[in-house]
């Protein structure tokens, strides 16, 4: 690793790790735990040193230090204060100039764009419509994802759908981006919770075929690991057109992460970059999309729903309307806050629109066109808690996908280094030493707890609203009120301002 100082292009470290020498017992836990080589032990001096430049702020060492000797702090802006030229811009220019490349980052857009969830408030019943006690009265969270035809002919079967015990699923994160143990933990948790996880675009390890009843298999432009058996294993199939963290660009699993077993699942040689082209080269139009949807349905003899996932972009409502008419059974919309394993920072931070607005626009459009019932809508992209989830449902979603929230359960501290393959928490790495840090026995329990608690919270909120079925909340925007939003925002969201 290069760690000599480059004076002309000097970039100050993002973090400062402070170690209280009087507390440190030289146990070297921080040295072995750090996967970014920030801490090292000097035997001669019996001293633990830190290479500040290497610290990514993942706090693994802080969690491990038995004596709480370590504090990791954000380094204050080292440059002269300037309201226009913040450190983000100065460092960004230097970094590009020095390395001659564009920075890649992980996780979602970290820029301070408005968060509409925080400007939406929920309703509760008072006097005229009694609230319900969810602990003692039945509450229905069960949700079906699939097409609901306008009418059925006598004797005709319903189109295939999947049944969720709670309207929360785990969104696409590929085996490759995630470690084996992370996928294992997720698979076990969704099985216990009676919901689904999405395989992402990297295929499935054969050892995870056991999750067949709880996995949605993804087909992306690179078609990695896509074959007949894989399509048969999935309970549903998702065509990935785009993802919120990097709309319009393809996937890119760096060669460093293509280990032996990843190469097996993706069916590509070890150590090569797994490049997913930006578009599916057999889809240049809605008609072509229809062709792939029906190719998948034909391949699986019309036995499972096909979902189409798109990123929330400017004309998302028109696109969604096209998708609904193309034969898709569900549309999944991923907002610009959605996380990712790796994306060019410039795309991650500047492309796409918030899921709240996109979701409302799509729901409104499909209603206007009288086809809302023909598809399910799955919303994703920065769902942080059950409140965000229920607001999404009130805005028109059938269910939500969570990604980052699930990783946080596994230990993630949002250090944005997933693409390096060196996740100190063992979540997004293929290093066998690191990936042991996720213990599926424990982590699946934690994740299951999260599903349970969020479901309970959903019921509590519904109870307060006087609603006993998630079905009757879907798209019911009268249960929402906006605060601090412009008239135009409110119009797009289709909600009234608080007080009205």
């Amino acid at each position, binding site marked *: 690793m*290069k760690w000599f100082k480059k004076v002309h292009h000097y970039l100050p470290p993002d973090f400062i790790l402070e170690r209280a020498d009087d507390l440190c017992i030289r146990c070297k836990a921080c040295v072995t735990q750090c996967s970014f080589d920030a801490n090292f032990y000097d035997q001669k001096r019996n001293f633990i040193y830190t290479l500040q430049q290497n610290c990514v702020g993942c706090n693994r060492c802080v969690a491990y230090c038995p004596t709480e000797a370590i504090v990791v702090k954000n380094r204050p802006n080292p440059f002269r204060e300037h309201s226009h030229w913040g450190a983000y811009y100065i460092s960004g220019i230097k970094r590009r100039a020095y390395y001659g490349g564009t920075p890649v980052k992980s996780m979602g857009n970290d820029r301070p764009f408005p968060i509409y969830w925080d400007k939406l408030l929920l309703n509760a019943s008072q006097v005229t419509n009694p609230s319900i006690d969810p602990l003692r009265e039945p509450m229905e969270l069960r949700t079906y994802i699939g097409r609901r035809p306008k009418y059925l002919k006598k004797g005709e079967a319903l189109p295939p759908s999947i049944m969720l015990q709670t309207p929360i699923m785990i969104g696409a994160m590929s085996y490759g981006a995630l470690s084996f143990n992370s996928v294992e933990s997720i698979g076990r948790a969704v099985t216990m919770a009676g919901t689904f996880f999405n395989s992402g675009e990297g295929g499935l390890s054969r050892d995870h075929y056991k999750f067949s009843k709880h996995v949605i298999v993804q087909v992306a432009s690179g078609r990695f690991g896509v074959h*007949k058996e894989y399509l048969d294993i999935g309970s549903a199939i998702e065509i990935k057109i785009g993802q919120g963290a990097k709309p319009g660009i393809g996937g890119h699993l760096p060669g460093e992460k293509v280990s032996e077993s990843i190469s097996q699942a993706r069916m590509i040689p070890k150590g090569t970059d797994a*490049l997913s082209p930006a578009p599916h080269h057999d889809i240049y139009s809605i008609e072509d999309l229809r062709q792939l949807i029906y190719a998948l349905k034909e391949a699986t003899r019309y036995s499972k729903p096909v979902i189409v996932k798109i990123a929330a972009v400017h004309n998302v409502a028109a696109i969604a309307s096209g998708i609904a008419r193309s034969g898709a059974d569900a549309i999944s919309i991923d907002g610009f806050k959605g996380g990712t394993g790796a994306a060019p920072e410039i795309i991650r931070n500047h492309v796409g629109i918030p899921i709240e607005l996109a979701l409302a626009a799509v729901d409104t459009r499909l209603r206007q066109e009288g086809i809302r019932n023909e598809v399910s809508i799955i919303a994703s992209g920065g769902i942080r808690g059950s409140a965000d989830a229920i607001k999404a449902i009130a805005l028109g979603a059938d269910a939500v996908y969570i990604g980052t929230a699930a990783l946080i359960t596994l230990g993630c501290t949002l250090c944005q280094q997933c693409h390096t393959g060196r996740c100190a928490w063992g979540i997004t790495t293929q290093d066998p030493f690191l990936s042991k840090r996720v213990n599926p026995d424990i982590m699946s329990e934690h994740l299951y707890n999260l599903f349970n608690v969020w479901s309970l919270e959903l019921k509590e909120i519904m109870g307060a609203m006087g609603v006993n079925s998630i079905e009757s909340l879907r798209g019911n925007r009268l249960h929402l009120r906006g605060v601090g939003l412009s008239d135009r925002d409110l119009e797009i969201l289709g909600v009234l301002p608080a007080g009205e």
Partner: protein
Amino acid sequence: MKTIDANKLYYKILNDQIHDAVDSGYRNIAINNVYGQYYIGDGLMQPVKIDINGIPGNDLGIFMDGPSIYVHGDAQDGIGNTMSGGKIVIDGNAGDVLGYSMRGGRIYVRGNVGYRTCIHMKSYKDDFPIVIIGGRTGEFAGEYMAGGVLVILDLFSEINTYDCNFIGAGMHGGIIIVRGKVNSDSLGREVKVTSLLQEDLLQIKEYLFEYCQELNINYNNVMKSRFTKIISATNRPYKNLYIDGFLH
């Protein structure tokens, strides 16, 4: 032997009939009067032989793993899309994105094919796709190719130097073999031309032989000419374009 008349049949009904025939044990199926029906052979895993008389529609043999399909005529777009195994022989021309993301099996075409042939074709261990085109390809042949072999024979044109543009753009694995010389301006940025080794020839000889047999082409004539081999310059084409965030 089962014969299906596809005249005026909607693709879903035609494919239901094919599946029924396969499920009831037929291993030889002939389909007559095919006029552009989609998805023939979609996801079939059985080692059946299907003869298509007419012009099959898009996505012929998509997700297929096992059957041998003989098309007695031209074919349309997306032939062998994401195909894992089996064989498709086309005694005519074919359309765009032939062999998209194909991972195994063989596609033999007598005539010309459209754009983006073998885009994102890949190989893995024993899964090794082979595509042989008798005529010429459209632009972007072998785009993003990651594995397998694409052979372009250019048997019927008068031009000595192969000049379909953007050959192997974004290619990061596999081999493209062109009979005759290749115009260096036609190459994609990520590929280079190298000399064809004896072992490359050995690798494809048996398939070229099979190709010539299936399509009644004189094998010795084909083998007389020089071949050009095109490979990617690196298996990490974009390594230097991106910087890891944690480097300072």
